[in-house]
């Protein structure tokens, strides 16, 4: 074997190794964020994926905490009608931005939702959390072990999810979202901005569907 063959062999091995490494990077490390994404005056770049038609004339920006019982009330009493009449019909879309302030498990739950997003399961995980919320803050229903159990029950790759959650990969993302809420004078959850083609309106609290309808109809 001459020297030239050895060098070619080394190069081939290096290329194969490089390709193998590139294709073996866990998907949890892939983050597709549109850093320029904003709705009205709010930067939603670090928020949830958009729910509904991206070209809808109205965007509802919801600031929420997974341990907040008023967010739970809104999720169960108002959101279904909005989904049916505005999101599914292409009149509006929705983005969820964290204001995780209520307890020590709140930021972790928000981070977990983005770990689920890595595997294309953001809204499934989001819905799972609001369907599983218990009435007591920090009683353990949203601790790391339960979050992993929720992921497992949704069929999410648990190894990737655990590595994402335990590493605190999305802690800065949640902090950024909290900061956005404070900069926009959101003083509690849930808080909303209804962003229309020409204007935006802020709504505080778990308001009923009739209020959202009135505001959105006046914008279309």
């Amino acid at each position: 074997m001459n020297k030239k063959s050895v060098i070619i062999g080394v190069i081939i091995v290096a290329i194969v190794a490089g390709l193998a490494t590139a294709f073996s990077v866990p998907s949890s490390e892939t983050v597709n964020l549109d850093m320029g994404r904003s709705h009205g005056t709010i930067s939603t770049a670090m928020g949830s994926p958009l729910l509904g038609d991206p070209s809808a004339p109205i965007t509802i920006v919801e600031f929420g905490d997974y341990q907040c019982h008023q967010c739970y009330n809104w999720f169960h009493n108002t959101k279904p009608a909005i989904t049916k009449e505005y999101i599914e019909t292409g009149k509006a879309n929705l983005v969820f931005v964290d204001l995780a302030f209520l307890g020590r498990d709140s930021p972790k739950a928000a981070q977990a939702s983005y770990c689920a997003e890595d595997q294309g399961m953001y809204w499934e995980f989001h819905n799972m959390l609001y369907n599983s919320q218990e009435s007591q803050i920090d009683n353990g229903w949203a601790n790391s072990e339960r979050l992993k159990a929720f992921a497992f029950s949704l069929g999410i790759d648990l190894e990737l999810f655990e590595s994402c959650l335990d590493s605190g990969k999305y802690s800065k993302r949640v902090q950024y979202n909290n900061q956005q809420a404070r900069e926009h004078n959101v003083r509690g959850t849930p808080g909303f901005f209804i962003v229309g083609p020409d204007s935006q309106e802020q709504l505080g609290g778990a308001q009923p569907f009739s209020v959202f309808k009135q505001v959105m109809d006046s914008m279309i």
Partner: protein
Amino acid sequence: MVNTIKLVFSNFKYLILSTVFFSAMVIGLLILSEYIFLEPYVVSHIPSGTELGFVLILIISALSALVIPMNIFRINILKKSKQKMSGGIFGSVIGAAAGACSCGPIGFAVISTFGSVGATATAFLTNYEVPIRIIAIGILTITYFTTVRSLKVECKISQ
């Protein structure tokens, strides 16, 4: 008991006071607990699953509006001690605080100002909102009966 209530509330001043107490407490607590919204439109609703909280607010407001004017009557007319009055105020305050500190603006302000101590206090008041309100109703009820008994003795009202 009916005679005692008649005695106090036959005085128009105490009837007005009671109405003001009830209105202020019920409207204030319903706004804090998000049963009433003022912006962008004035609207009220009772979300499914929150009916018990609504009823407890009505009971606390009604009892406060009954007990506090009766005790003011005792202090003003009969020049008696303020001890029983404090029971009524204490019951009203803890009943109100239970629902106020949640994920709304007051809870947010408490947590932002006091950090983890505020978060712990807010979590406690939120987690035990219903039991605290029931305790407040208990305190107000006891205060009511002791006030009625005192007024019967002090005013020599017949059964």
